[in-house]
């Protein structure tokens, strides 16, 4: 990584590593989840850099680094939310005082935070209308995924809320990945 890599991205990586290491200590049975959380974003970054070098392209521009660091921040926040939810889950459950509503709150809060963050994504004013359409689509997908996730945990019985909640969240994330891939690799004539 280079000097262009912003300090905030380093800070986010430190937060992720700290949370995942903490979870590794208290929940060693899920070790591979925590390792994946620590290495997935740096691995993607290294892969992108390696592919760029393999294609014989020069060093990335400051604008390129800025865009990647913005995406990195978004991905980091989602991982931090997931790790935070796992920590809340562990401590509310192991305290022996977990009520139905403390369990529900532990799930509703990350969904709510995702909604708040995704809601603000299209506030980024962009020149390229296709990129603007991509941001709006992704924001809508994450907001609806987050609302569905939080609503399932708020309304449904606890023992049957997990699957529909995850279905909402995963649908939102899958739509974001598909739409972004279409924008990046195949959507030159597409519109949002």
């Amino acid at each position, binding site marked *: 990584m280079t000097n262009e890599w912003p300090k905030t991205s380093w800070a986010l990586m430190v937060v992720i590593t700290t949370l995942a290491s903490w979870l590794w200590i208290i929940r060693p049975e899920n070790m591979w989840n925590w390792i994946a959380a620590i290495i997935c974003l740096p691995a993607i970054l290294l892969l992108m850099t390696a592919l760029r070098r393999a294609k014989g392209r020069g060093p990335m521009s400051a604008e390129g680094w800025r865009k990647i660091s913005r995406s990195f921040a978004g991905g980091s926040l989602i991982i931090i939310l997931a790790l935070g939810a796992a920590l809340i889950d562990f401590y509310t459950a192991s305290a022996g005082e977990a009520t139905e509503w403390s369990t529900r709150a532990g799930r509703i809060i990350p969904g709510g935070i995702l909604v708040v963050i995704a809601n603000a994504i*299209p506030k980024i*004013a962009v*020149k*390229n*209308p296709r990129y*603007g*359409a991509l941001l*709006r689509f992704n924001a809508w997908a994450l907001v609806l995924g987050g609302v569905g996730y939080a609503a399932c945990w708020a309304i449904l019985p606890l023992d049957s809320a997990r699957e529909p909640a995850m279905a909402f969240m995963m649908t939102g994330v899958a739509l974001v990945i598909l739409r972004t891939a279409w924008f990046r690799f195949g959507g030159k004539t597409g519109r949002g």
Partner: protein
Amino acid sequence: MNKIFKALSDPTRRKVLQLLRKGPKTAGGLAGEFDVSKPTMSAHFTVLKDADLVETVRDGKTITYHLKLSVLEDALLGFAQMVGVSTTQDTEQEAQNDE
């Protein structure tokens, strides 16, 4: 929030936002799409800017407007469009006051 409701309550301003979905546009380009006076159009732009629904970029004498809608504001825009809320007279009154 009041500013947002006020901005979205006018059909001309909603149409401005719809036009900006296709990409940034200059003030002149946007004004050309409507059959209203320049002061009225300018008042509409001011209301949209005050509500933080658009961003302006000045390049010399040209002002370019960029869309800046959150998901909630986008949903409110769609709802206002569907219901057809209208308070056009307010803005015309403001523009006349400016003149």
